[in-house]
């Protein structure tokens, strides 16, 4: 069965500091990996995705993530955090659509940014 672990429930960083959110996955085949962001009371917005190729993927809002197959990880990074980045971040794993394939989400990491 596929699963996602986000070991950090809450993270607090100072504005301007770097950020890394951890994500580990379990998937029986080549995974498709995603990071979503959710502002309070809102839906989820796709930040970036990894399908194949270059293991370092760039997303919106200055975020990037690196796929490391050997570590079953897909950590999200940002060099300099802005106060507006405060939100909840979800990592997800899945495969091809069709056949009822579904995305499995982690439990999320709540990011707080101190000014």
């Amino acid at each position: 069965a596929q699963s996602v672990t986000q070991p950090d429930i809450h993270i607090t960083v100072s504005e301007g500091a770097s950020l890394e959110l951890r994500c580990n996955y379990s998937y029986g085949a080549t995974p498709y990996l995603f990071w979503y962001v959710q502002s309070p009371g809102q839906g989820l917005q796709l930040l970036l995705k990894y399908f194949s190729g270059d293991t370092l993927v760039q997303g919106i809002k200055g975020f990037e993530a690196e796929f490391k197959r050997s570590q079953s990880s897909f950590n999200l990074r940002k060099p300099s955090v802005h106060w507006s980045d405060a939100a909840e971040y979800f990592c997800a794993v899945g495969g091809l659509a069709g056949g009822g394939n579904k995305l499995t989400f982690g439990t999320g990491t709540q990011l707080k940014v101190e000014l």
Partner: protein
Amino acid sequence: SQTIHQWPATLVQPVGSPLSLECTVEGTSNPNLYWYRQAAGRGLQLLFYSVGIGQISSEVPQNLSASRPQDRQFILSSKKLLLSDSGFYLCAWGRGSGANVLTFGAGSRLTVL
């Protein structure tokens, strides 16, 4: 471009009352549709998904049901709400082939009193 709408955005209902949350997608055809529930500190739990009209798969046993009466309409229902049904409900759509990238609606906040 594709858009997804959910309503109502907020709902307060008494225990034992019925529920109907609606989700519609525009700008695409034959999407895969999903209902997720989000409870505090528990991430997103997939409740139902549908790959076509009238085709519903349930992921967890519960007090809720789903229907897809039209290609781009997905409805979440209950005949009698329980306190434990409170939560934030998210509808999402994805393409029926290729990588399963989901686009989410803005969510519906349900409080059962």
